[in-house]
C-alpha cells in the first residue's frame, strides 16, 4: 500500500480525505436508479430510458472516483487490514458492476444478446447489494465494528441473539462477597474486557493475539506467549503495560484507556498464582498490596459509571456565540471579558481593573445573559439595583460580590439562578436573613460570608440544614487568638521533648 512516489507530496492524502464525501454519490445514484427501475416495473411511474442511463453512467463514474480516493486514503495506513481489504474489493466491485450494467444496458448490446435485459438487472442488483455491504464496512472502518447496533434496545437485542448491552453486562459483575468471587471470571476477565479484548478477540486479532480465553493468552501472538503461568515478571501482557506510554510496544496503545496500577497488580497476582480458571479469592494467598487493590476493584464494579457523573452539566450545554459588539461595550467600560475556554462560548467577566463600575453599567451585561458564567464585581460601586440585572444571567455559576454595598434585599433576587455554585459575600452587609433566603438554592456549593453581618450560629444552623453546602465564615479575632495560643503551647511541649 505504500508508494514512495505518493508520499512525497500532500496530494494523495488531500484527495484521499475526499473519499467519505465522494462515496455518498454512487450510493445515492445507485439507490435512486434501483428505486426508479422497480417503480417502472410496476408501472407506477414513467421514466425516460435516457435519464436512467444517465444516472447509471454517473454511478459508474462516481464509484470509480470513490475507489481512487479510497485507495489514496488507505495508503495513509492506520486501518484494520482485514476489514479494509473486504471494503476495498467490494468498492471496486461496485464500480466494476456499474460499468458492466452500463455496457449491457446499451442498445447495441441488448440487440445482440437475447437475455440482455435479465443480464442488466442482475448486474444492477449486484451493484446495489455490494454498495450496501461496502457502505456498512466503510462505516465500521471509521467508527469501529458494532457502532451501528451498539445501542440496540430490548427486546430486539434478545430476538436477534445479541449479547446484553455493556451496562447490563457490568451489572452482572457486581461483586457481593469478595472472598467468594472467582478470580478469573469476576476480576481478571472484566479487566481484560475493559482494556484488551476490543482489539484482541476472536474476530479482531491485532498482532495475532486473542485475549478472550486463558488458553489463547498462553498460546500468545506474533511476539510469543502473552502469559507465562506463575511468572508475571516474564509475561508479555504485564510487561507491555509497564513500558513507558510513548513506547511503540506499550499496551494499550497511546490514547486508549490505560490499566490502573491496581489492575496491573491484580493481573500479576493472578498470573503468579498460576493463572487458575476456577479458583476463588479465598483459595489464593492475598499478599499486602493486593487487599487494597481488590477493595478498589470491588467498589468500582459496584458503583455505576462514576466518570460520567463527574462532568459538570452546565458546560456540556451548547450556547450561542456572544455578539462581538456587546463584548466590546463591556470592554470599553474597562472590564475583562474572556472566553472560559477555547471550545465553547461561556464568558468570564471581571471588573478588577475598573473599581468605578456601577449599577448603570450593569445593563451592559444584559445582552450577554446566556454567556456570562463567571462574574467578578468585587470592590466595585454596585448596589442592590445591580443584582436585578445579575439575576437575569441565567447560566451564572460563579459570582464575586465581596467588598460591595449590596444588602439582603438585593441578594434575594438571585434566588432563581439555577446554576450558581460559588457566591462570595465577604466584606458586605449581608445578614443571617439574607443568607437564609439563598441557602436553599439547590445548585449552590459554597458561600463565603467572612466579615459580613452573618453570625456563627446561623452558619452552624444552615450547615446542619444543608449538609452539602459549605458556608465559610473564617476566623474571628478571639477564635484566632485561642488557636495560636494552643499551637504555641504544642510547639513549646514539642521543644521540651
Amino acid at each position: 500500500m505504500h508508494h514512495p512516489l505518493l508520499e512525497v507530496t500532500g496530494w494523495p492524502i488531500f484527495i484521499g480525505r475526499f473519499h467519505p464525501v465522494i462515496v455518498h454519490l454512487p450510493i445515492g445514484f445507485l439507490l435512486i436508479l434501483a428505486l426508479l427501475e422497480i417503480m417502472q416495473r410496476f408501472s407506477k411511474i414513467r421514466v425516460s430510458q435516457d435519464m436512467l442511463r444517465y444516472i447509471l453512467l454517473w454511478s459508474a463514474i462516481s464509484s470509480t472516483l470513490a475507489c481512487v480516493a479510497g485507495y489514496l486514503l488507505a495508503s495513509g495506513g492506520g486501518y484494520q487490514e482485514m476489514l479494509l481489504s473486504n471494503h476495498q474489493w467490494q468498492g471496486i466491485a461496485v464500480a466494476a458492476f456499474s460499468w458492466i450494467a452500463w455496457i449491457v444496458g446499451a442498445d447495441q448490446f441488448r440487440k445482440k444478446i437475447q437475455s440482455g435485459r435479465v443480464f442488466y438487472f442482475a448486474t444492477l442488483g449486484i451493484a446495489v447489494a455490494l454498495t450496501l455491504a461496502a457502505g456498512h464496512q466503510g462505516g465500521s472502518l471509521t467508527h469501529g465494528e458494532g457502532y451501528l447496533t451498539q445501542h440496540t434496545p430490548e427486546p430486539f437485542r434478545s430476538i436477534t441473539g445479541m449479547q446484553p448491552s455493556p451496562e447490563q453486562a457490568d451489572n452482572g459483575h457486581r461483586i457481593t462477597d469478595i472472598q467468594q468471587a472467582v478470580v478469573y471470571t469476576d476480576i481478571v476477565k472484566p479487566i481484560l474486557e475493559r482494556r484488551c479484548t476490543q482489539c484482541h478477540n476472536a474476530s479482531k486479532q491485532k498482532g495475532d493475539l486473542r485475549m478472550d480465553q486463558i488458553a489463547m493468552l498462553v498460546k500468545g501472538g506474533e511476539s510469543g506467549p502473552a502469559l507465562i503461568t506463575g511468572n508475571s515478571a516474564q509475561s508479555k501482557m504485564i510487561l507491555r503495560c509497564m513500558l513507558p506510554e510513548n513506547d511503540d510496544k506499550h499496551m494499550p496503545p497511546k490514547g486508549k484507556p490505560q490499566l490502573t496500577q491496581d489492575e496491573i497488580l491484580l493481573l500479576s497476582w493472578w498470573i503468579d498464582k498460576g493463572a487458575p480458571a476456577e479458583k476463588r479469592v479465598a483459595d489464593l494467598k492475598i499478599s499486602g498490596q493486593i487487599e487494597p487493590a481488590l477493595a478498589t476493584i470491588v467498589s468500582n464494579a459496584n458503583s455505576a459509571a462514576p466518570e460520567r457523573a463527574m462532568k459538570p452539566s452546565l458546560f456540556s450545554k451548547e450556547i450561542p456565540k456572544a455578539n462581538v459588539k456587546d463584548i466590546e461595550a463591556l470592554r470599553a467600560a474597562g472590564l475583562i471579558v474572556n472566553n472560559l475556554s477555547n471550545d465553547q462560548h461561556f464568558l468570564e467577566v471581571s471588573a478588577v481593573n475598573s473599581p468605578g463600575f456601577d449599577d448603570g453599567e450593569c445593563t451592559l451585561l444584559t445582552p450577554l445573559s446566556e454567556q456570562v458564567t463567571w462574574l467578578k464585581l468585587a470592590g466595585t460601586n454596585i448596589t442592590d439595583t445591580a443584582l436585578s440585572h445579575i439575576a437575569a444571567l441565567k447560566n451564572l455559576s460563579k459570582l464575586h460580590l465581596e467588598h460591595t454595598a449590596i444588602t439582603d434585599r438585593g441578594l434575594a433576587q438571585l434566588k432563581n439562578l439555577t446554576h450558581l455554585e460559588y457566591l462570595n459575600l465577604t466584606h458586605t452587609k449581608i445578614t443571617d436573613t439574607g443568607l437564609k433566603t439563598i441557602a436553599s438554592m439547590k445548585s449552590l456549593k459554597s458561600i463565603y460570608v467572612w466579615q459580613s453581618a452573618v453570625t456563627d450560629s446561623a452558619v452552624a444552623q444552615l450547615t446542619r440544614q444543608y449538609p452539602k453546602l459549605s458556608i465559610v465564615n473564617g476566623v474571628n479575632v478571639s477564635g484566632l487568638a485561642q488557636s495560636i495560643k494552643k499551637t504555641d503551647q504544642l510547639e513549646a511541649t514539642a521543644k521540651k521533648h
Partner: protein
Amino acid sequence: MEKLITELQQTKVLHQTRRHFLQSCGFSLGALGLGSLLDSCSPTTSNPSGLSADAMSVKTPQFVPKAKRVIYIHMAGAPSQLELFDYKPELLKYHGKDCPAEFLEGKKFAFIQGVPKMLGPQGKFNQYGQSGAWISDYLPHLQTVADDITFIKSMHTDQFNHAPAQLLMHTGGARLGRPSLGSWAVYGLGSENQNLPGFIVLTSGGKQPDAGKSIWGSGFLPSVYQGVQCRTGTDPVLYVSDPKGISRDLRKQTIETINEINRQSYEDIQDPEILTRISQYEMAFRMQMSVPEVMDITKEPSFILDMYGVKPGEGSFAMNCLLARKLIENDVRFVQLFDWGWDGHGSNARDNIEGGLHEKCRQTDQPVAALLRDLKMRGLLEETLVVWGGEFGRTPMQENRNGLVMPYMGRDHHVEAFTMWMAGGGIKKGVVHGETDELGYYGVKDRVHVHDLQATILHLLGFDHEKFTYPFQGRNFRLTDVEGKLVKEIIA
C-alpha cells in the same frame, strides 16, 4: 552630541545582521529555491506568538480551568520528607545500622560515600484531620489544616544537585534556557490586573536559590513573561517612588518620550524585545501607584498579622505569605515564594535536623497554615492552587560526607522519593497520593515525576501540557519536554 551620533551609527550596524543580508538578497537566492528558508528568517515570522504591546492581556485557555491563580512555595535546599510527612516507623528499627547494599549499588549521591548508617525519623508523628494525614510535630500549625491538603508522597526527580534539580522543577529541564512554570502561565493566560505584574517572585531565608534567577526566567519566551522579583521589607520595588525634585507629571512625560523613541526603533528593527521594554516602562509607571498600595501591610488588621506571625518592617517568609495573599486577592496570576535554608546535611550548626530544620519549620509553619486559612475564608482557595515542596528529598541514610561521622544529624540529597503537597483550585481535599517502601527509599505506588506534577498544574490552569507549546529554534517546545503524565487521581 558627537557621542550620540556615533552610538546611533553603531546601533544601526549592530542590527545589520545575516537576516538582513538574506532579506535583501531574497530575490536572487529565492531563484535558487531557497525561498522557504528565507520565509523562516523574515522578521515577521520571528514573532510567532503575534506578540504585541498587549502581550499581557487576558487569554483563553484550552479548556475551563479549575484554578485561576497559583501560589508556588518552594523550600530551597529541599526539606526532609522523613521528618515532616513520610512516616516510616520501620526506619526507626534500622536506626544506626548499615545501609542495605541494594540501596547503594549503582547509585550516586551528592555526598554519601561507602556504606552509610540508616537514620530513623526524628519527628514525632501523628494523624490529623478527618483524612488522617501523617504530619510530624515539626509542623503543629499545618496539622490544623490537614483536611484541605493533598499530599504526594511518591515524587521523584532526575537531578541530585540543587541548581539542576531546581531548574528541572521550575522549567522542565535541568539546563538553562527554558521558561519557568510561572512564565508559561502568564504566556498562556495573560494577566488580569493591569497595574501589577502577572508573575511576582518573593524570596526569603537570606540567600537566593542555587539556580539563581533562571528559575523564574522566561527562557525563550518573550521576556515580558519573566517573574518580577519584589523585595520584602520597607521598599518592595527599588526606585518605585519618584526621585527628589521630579514630579509625577515630569516622570510621566519622560516615560512617554522614552516609549515614543522605543516605538520608532521597533518600527525600524521589529525586535519584539523592544515591545517588552515599552510595556515594562508603562507597567513600572502604573506600579508606582499600585505596588506600594498592595505591598502596604499597615492597613491589615492586627489579628491577621498575628495569624501569619508577621512583624511589620521585617522582611520574612511570613511577610511574603501575607503579601502572596494580597497579590492573589488583586488577581495576580502567579506568585512564587522561595525560602532558602532547607539543606540539612548535618555538616554544620545550621544545616541539620535537630536545630536547623526545627528553626526553618518554626519560621514557615504558622505563615503557611495562615495563608491556607486566609485564602479559604476570603473564598480565594477554591480558585487558587497552592503548591509546596523542595527540589528533591532527603535520604533515609545519615549523611557521611567523606566517609566520616558528621557532627550533626543530617540527610543527603535524595532523588527517588520525596513529598510535596498541593491545596486549593481543582485539587482533592485530604488525599494522600502515592506511597514509599518501608524505609522511605523508593516510591512503590503511583510514582509522580516532576514532569507529571507540571502536567497536572498546567491541566488545572486549563492547558493540555502536550498541546501547550512555543515554537523555538525550529521545533515546538513544551514545559514538560516530551514527558509528563497527568495525575488524574488528585484532581477534584
